[in-house]
């Protein structure tokens, strides 16, 4: 065999490295947590890395997982070795093809990083609900439990599928295994070659469809033979069990690691046995060892091959002494007699007893339990309580573990203090900010340790689901023996707090062991730091006798040229203090790693990191800990005491990081949450916030329209409100004529602002005497936090400006409308949220939103910060829901049809009851146009009067009318999502609803890339842009979705870019909503995935339009009826070279650094694209039209 190397990598890379080397066609679609497998494959393919047969696999990104499965199916049918990677909903989209692939006995392996299937809510985290949903499809299901196993099983699955012809689904736990970094023995090409029999590949090719030896496959069958045909495949599945076991044995001979279909571990005379699959089995493994060392008689059956389920081998795996078996499922089958693995085990044991299989002395008691849904922690303490439950006389069946079910009493308790952590394992925890490089540093550290010692290592990283100010927690274990601890660290030897503000938010020291080490990044020196610590922190440092070190990492990072990335600094501190490696050796290795990591980016980048190393060691200090805690700082509550009870008691716990403590009864049964709760989490993310200069301000409203977070707002009001204003509250005379005599204020919410600075960048007003001073200027937040919070509260108490009097097409007037989308967790400076906020201002009180999965569904409805969607003072506001990624358009159409039907029914009933209601009111209600704010306001008053009258009508019709009467007021239905949805996976739905003619508004937040999953190419990605799956720059031009929609003729279509012309955006939104038919708005949304400066991102939008790369237009079918051309081209012909725009964005510019020749070719083509697209639109917009009065009748 070739020489194998030991490397540190995560589960995704481990699996991809085998799958890539064993396949020829790889069809993928991004989905968390499986995306990196596809990304690795794409990257290797672009670098020309061959598979074991010396040819470079083709990697293709499809429009959906259904598309990926279809492509794999086609590739298999024509004789190639093909694979795909997916998870969760993606796997569910593959099910129809899985039945086909299995039915036709195509050898393939689908690699799945398991993830919860969305139910009442989406979750990106791990359970087996996705895999379980496919267990009837006919795929063999092979489960790996660790990173090493994931690599090994990728190979075993491929060898077994070729030999058995049964397709395999190889799965491993999302995040826990897919993202865990571990040291593993990497299988060499020779290992792979030894395991794969080329003859089987040749047989596969011989079965392929080919005109040279034609057959047909995929026929339609009738009742006469379909059944028999299904049974015809039985031998393959029977054979599959033995073959898989023999492949495992062959693997053992080659690689030295033995696996069995059902693998027993534990005491030979165990009485209690847990049966489990996935990473949870590692936890049970550790607990079993511990318990047996302490006098227990327990064991564990690890399920490797779940389908086909080998009942006999399962029974045979159990020790004869077994009294009880607890079968643990990581999925939930509501309403079933038990969860799947439990039911399989019950059936197997029953059959085993009947047939006399195995050595069991008695029929064991068997119970089922559920654990770990959505990556809920599963620990040795829980394992112990499961064993305790088994040995209990009154064993609870169908139990849950890890939660407190106070509702249906399913849960069993566990002792959180019970621990199996070994003294030989060094455990370190790090709290960092997403942007400070903490995770990157820890990944490097763990690799350094893995490479330079014989230690086993484990790195696991917990991320925030909020994008602005995201918190990361790194869990690192190092030890001499294999690490089975697939759970979070609760008893750390070392804790690094990389952001001192976290001390006020999280009780992190509770995770440190006595006499552990605490490292804090702080601007304070060793003499002053103690007084800056919250009292509870001081108490724990003293009580636990912690060693306490400090470093001013930001100062050193700045001094070294690293800006706000403190990764290298903190990494050096960790090694210097922990002494896991000798200090000099560690520093030498950090230097080496820096050169390897950054060398390709240039000497400057290497040098500034090396400089940081030198600067760090001189500035790391141990703090002398006083004997008494006397701190004056108390940790504030997670949310204000003023917040509603649900927010305080439920959301507040989640915000404080204690959501695990919430019992079942505390959470809603159906995923319904109140809106307007984001305002209760004051995150204080901004280092600097905008400060208003009233005398310089021209009151244009550009700052508020551009603000992605709705933290800067305008009000106009009567001067007498100022009587009770706080002292520092700013105000000035309103300049607009309609507000003559009123006062005007622009106010910032200091604790909600993210400090993105976009408002300052777009502010056009400068001081006449010092042009560097604008009407808004960024200044440090901390000194202003208290005063400005008071000012913000006062500002909110001023009544909202009357909406019915506004000149709505003027930004300066429109911007006083209250945003009903506020303080979302989007990235600081997000390019999408300003559009959503604008919709909420314009139509929020009558708005219902269907939101496709993606960034907007995460920042729009992500716990614990649900929800930025808010209510006005009358209690009205947007109602919002996310169904799926692929069905969003159809979901929104359902809203429309439902509302239309209820309005129609209300109209029927109101006519029927007109004599009781009053004919005039009925007539007014039914003939109301509701085309503008005033008319809607009047209708609302009429419906209110109607509802009052209905309260007195006790008939069935009256009560039914009351339930639907609100539908007589216009409802604005918006379907929104990103380009991945609208251009790719949901395009069929988008196409269908615009063809429906229904009054529905579609907003495409076009970032030209899959932003939420980390920048994969979509069909909206422009030519020449680098993205994942387009690492050589996208070769084809952007799909023209607007032009496609225009071909229907009766669809309102607009292309907007707020940063280029905000007034145009406003106008398009108003026209789209007012248009009585389908509307499609494609909104240019800048994104961090573009590689841009987010503070000045609105300039990128302007450059995109000025260069002709993005067009502004409105296609309004209503104009056709007036004899006008429906298309208005609203942007000018290109006035700057497109290169000027391209060079502003790393997604284009990077290509010059990676593939300069391709870049020049593609940039030249982009120039031509711009010219030809402009010419086409110019031609279309300048055509003469004749009146077509019948256009409306098409709908």
């Amino acid at each position: 065999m070739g020489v194998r190397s030991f490397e540190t990598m995560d589960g995704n890379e481990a699996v991809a490295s085998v799958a890539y080397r064993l396949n020829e066609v790889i069809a993928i679609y991004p989905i968390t947590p499986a995306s990196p497998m596809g990304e690795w494959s794409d990257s290797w393919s672009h670098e020309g890395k061959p598979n074991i047969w010396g040819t470079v696999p083709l990697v293709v990104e499809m429009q959906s997982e259904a598309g990926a499965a279809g492509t794999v199916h086609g590739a298999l049918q024509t004789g190639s070795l093909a694979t795909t990677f997916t998870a969760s909903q993606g796997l569910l989209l593959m099910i129809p093809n899985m039945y086909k692939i299995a039915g036709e006995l195509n050898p393939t392996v689908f690699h799945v990083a398991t993830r919860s299937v969305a139910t009442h809510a989406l979750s990106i985290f791990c359970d087996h609900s996705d895999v379980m949903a496919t267990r009837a499809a006919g795929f063999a299901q092979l489960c790996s439990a660790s990173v090493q196993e994931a690599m090994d099983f990728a190979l075993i699955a491929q060898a077994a599928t070729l030999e058995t012809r049964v397709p395999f689904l190889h799965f491993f736990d999302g995040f826990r295994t897919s993202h865990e970094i571990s040291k593993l023995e990497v299988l060499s090409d020779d290992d792979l070659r030894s395991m794969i029999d080329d003859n089987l590949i040749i047989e596969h090719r011989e079965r392929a469809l080919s005109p040279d030896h034609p057959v047909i496959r995929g026929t339609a069958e009738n009742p006469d033979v379909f059944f028999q045909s299904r049974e015809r495949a039985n031998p393959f599945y029977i054979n599959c069990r033995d073959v898989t076991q023999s492949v495992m044995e062959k693997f053992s001979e080659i690689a030295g690691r033995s696996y069995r279909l059902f693998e027993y571990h534990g005491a030979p005379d165990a009485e209690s046995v847990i049966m489990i699959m996935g990473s949870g089995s590692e936890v049970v493994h550790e607990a079993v060892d511990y318990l047996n060392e302490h006098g227990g008689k327990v064991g564990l059956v690890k399920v490797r091959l779940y389908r086909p389920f080998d009942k006999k081998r399962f029974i045979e795996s159990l020790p004869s002494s077994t009294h009880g078996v607890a079968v643990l499922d990581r999925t939930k089958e509501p309403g079933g007699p038990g969860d799947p693995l439990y039911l399989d085990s019950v059936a197997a044991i029953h059959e085993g007893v009947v047939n006399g299989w195995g050595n069991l002395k008695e029929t064991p008691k068997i119970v089922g339990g559920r654990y770990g849904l959505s990556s809920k922690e599963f620990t040795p303490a829980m394992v112990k309580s499961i064993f305790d439950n088994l040995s209990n006389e009154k064993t609870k069946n169908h139990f849950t573990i890890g939660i407190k079910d106070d509702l249906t009493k399913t849960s069993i308790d566990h002792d959180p203090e019970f621990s199996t952590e070994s003294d030989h394992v060094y455990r370190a925890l790090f709290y960092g900010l997403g942007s400070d490089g903490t995770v990157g540093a820890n990944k490097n550290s763990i690799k350094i340790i893995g490479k330079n010692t014989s230690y086993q290592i484990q790195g696991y990283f917990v991320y925030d689901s909020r994008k602005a100010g995201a918190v990361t927690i790194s869990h690192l274990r190092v030890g001499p023996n294999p690490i089975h601890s697939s759970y979070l660290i609760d008893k750390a030897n070392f804790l690094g707090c990389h952001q001192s503000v976290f001390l006020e938010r999280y009780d992190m020291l509770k995770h440190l062991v006595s006499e552990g080490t605490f490292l804090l990044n702080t601007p304070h020196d060793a003499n002053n730091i103690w007084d800056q610590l919250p009292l509870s922190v001081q108490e724990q440092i003293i009580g636990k006798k912690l060693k306490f070190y400090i470093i001013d990492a930001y100062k050193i990072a700045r001094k070294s040229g690293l800006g706000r990335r403190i990764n290298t600094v903190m990494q050096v501190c960790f090694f210097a203090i922990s002494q896991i490696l000798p200090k000099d050796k560690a520093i030498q290795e950090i230097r080496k790693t820096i050169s390897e990591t950054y060398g390709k980016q240039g000497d400057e980048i290497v040098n500034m990191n090396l400089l940081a190393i030198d600067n760090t060691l001189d500035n790391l200090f141990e703090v002398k800990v006083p004997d008494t805690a006397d701190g004056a700082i108390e940790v504030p509550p997670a949310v204000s005491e003023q917040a509603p009870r649900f927010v305080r008691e439920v959301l507040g716990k989640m915000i404080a990081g204690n959501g695990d403590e919430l019992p079942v009864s505390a959470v809603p049964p159906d995923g319904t949450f109140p809106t307007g709760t984001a305002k209760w989490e004051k995150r204080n993310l901004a280092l600097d916030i905008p400060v208003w200069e009233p005398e310089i301000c021209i009151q244009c409203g550009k700052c508020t329209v551009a603000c992605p977070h709705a933290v800067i707002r305008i009000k106009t009001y009567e001067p007498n409100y100022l009587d009770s204003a706080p002292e520092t509250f700013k105000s000035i005379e309103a300049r607009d004529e309609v507000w003559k005599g009123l006062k005007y204020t622009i106010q910032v919410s200091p604790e909600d602002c993210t400090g993105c600075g976009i408002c300052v960048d777009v502010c056009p007003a400068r001081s006449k005497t010092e042009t560097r001073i604008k009407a808004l200027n960024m200044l440090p937040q901390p000194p202003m936090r208290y005063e400005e919070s008071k000012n913000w509260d006062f500002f909110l108490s001023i009544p909202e400006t009357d909406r019915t009097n506004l000149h709505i097409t003027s930004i300066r007037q429109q911007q006083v409308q209250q945003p009903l989308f506020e303080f979302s967790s989007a990235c600081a400076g997000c390019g999408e949220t300003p559009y959503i906020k604008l919709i909420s201002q314009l139509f929020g009180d009558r708005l219902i939103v269907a939101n496709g999965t993606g960034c907007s569904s995460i920042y729009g409805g992500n716990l614990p910060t649900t929800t930025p969607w808010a209510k006005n003072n009358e209690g009205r506001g947007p109602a919002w829901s996310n169904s799926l990624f692929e069905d969003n358009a159809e979901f929104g159409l359902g809203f429309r049809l439902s509302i239309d039907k209820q309005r129609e029914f209300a109209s029927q009933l109101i006519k029927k009851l007109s004599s009781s209601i009053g004919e005039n009111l009925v007539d007014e209600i039914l003939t109301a146009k509701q085309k503008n704010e005033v008319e809607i306001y009047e209708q609302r008053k009429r419906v209110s009067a109607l509802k009052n009258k209905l309260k007195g009508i006790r008939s069935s019709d009256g009560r039914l009318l009351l339930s639907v009467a609100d539908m007589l007021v216009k409802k604005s239905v918006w379907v929104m999502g990103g380009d991945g949805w609208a251009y790719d996976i949901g395009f069929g739905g988008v196409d269908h609803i615009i063809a429906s003619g229904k009054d529905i508004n579609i907003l495409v937040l076009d970032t030209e890339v899959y932003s939420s999953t980390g920048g994969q190419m979509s069909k909206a990605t422009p030519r020449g842009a680098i993205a994942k799956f387009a690492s050589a720059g996208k070769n084809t031009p952007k799909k023209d979705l607007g032009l496609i929609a225009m071909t229907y003729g009766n669809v309102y279509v607009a292309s907007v870019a707020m940063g280029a012309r905000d007034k145009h955006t406003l106008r398009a939104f108003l026209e789209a909503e007012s248009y009585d038919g389908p509307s499609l708005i494609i909104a240019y949304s800048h994104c961090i995935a573009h590689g841009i400066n987010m503070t000045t991102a609105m300039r990128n939008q302007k450059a995109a339009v000025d260069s002709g790369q993005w067009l502004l237009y409105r296609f309004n079918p209503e104009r056709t009826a007036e004899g006008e051309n429906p298309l208005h081209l609203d942007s000018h012909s290109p006035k700057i070279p497109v290169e000027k725009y391209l060079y502003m964005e790393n997604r284009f510019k990077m290509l010059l650094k990676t593939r300069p020749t391709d870049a020049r070719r593609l940039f030249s083509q982009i120039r031509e694209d711009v010219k030809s697209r402009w010419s086409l639109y110019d031609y279309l917009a300048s055509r003469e039209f004749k009146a077509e009065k019948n256009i409306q009748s098409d709908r």
Partner: protein
Amino acid sequence: MDLSTTYLGMNLRSPFVPSACPLSEEIDNIRLMEDSGASAVVLYSLFEEQLILERYELHHHLTYHSDSFAEALSFFPEPSEFHVGPEGYLDHIRKAKSAVDIPIIASLNGHTIGGWIDYAQKIEQAGADAIELNIYHLPTDLDQRSEDVEQIYVDILKAVKSEVKIPIALKLSPFFSNVSYMAKRFEQAGADALVLFNRFYQPDIDLEALEIHPNIILSTPHALRLPLTWIAILYGRVKTDLAATSGIHTAPDVLKMLMVGAKITMLCSVLFQHGIEQIRMIEKEMLIWMEEHEYESVKQMHGSMSQINCEDPSAFERSQYMRGLLTYMPTV
């Protein structure tokens, strides 16, 4: 008619040399320059700060928001190799050399000793016939002394000169207290030619936005007076070749520069305004003029109107300035 000249030890068929500008970014343009009569080409500049800045920028964007969100641990694919050094420029030199027969002069623009040496060596290895050093130091520090600024120029020149064998032309600033003294120092430091003069970045103001805007403007014919004056003064007094750049738009402009002592005349703005083929027009006009005035070669006129060779050397002195002022009559 003999238009040939020598520059940096190279025999050139004419004095027409396109100066460092973006036109030479395209190989096709370089071919066209040769076809239109250019006797050599100074390539567009390799900017020291640009390379460094781009590295920082790339690093920033590759790390920004990375490892922050569970779903998006990065936003860009990370290739195994980046061309963050001068590879593109060096490749361009190689392509230019194989595309044309005329000499290719590379241009290095920077202001610190930094990576120059390395770049200069690589440029030489890539096949450039010579290097034009454009030392672009814009002192804004009130405490930096003039002699320190001057020393920076000399140090960079010496450092580069000591590392390469190909000739070095130094493109310099007119803003020295004594240009002649500096010319002498550069000669002593090993410059093979002096290019007079560099046009400094002079930003503009956007009155609507009240912002400073980088706004490169093309040279006008009036700009040629400054290099003309100093070439005339320096000719015959320093041994280095002199090259004229700025404001050379027509055949008479070329003739004047040659007469005051320029070995070559560099063309840029005129090529942007009228196209690269304009070189041919200028050559044609020059030939007509030379025929009309019975010149046989460029060498004949070379330096003929320099301060040391002209009829009235004081024409280049301060007294003429006063005379000019006193006799100035505005046209109304």
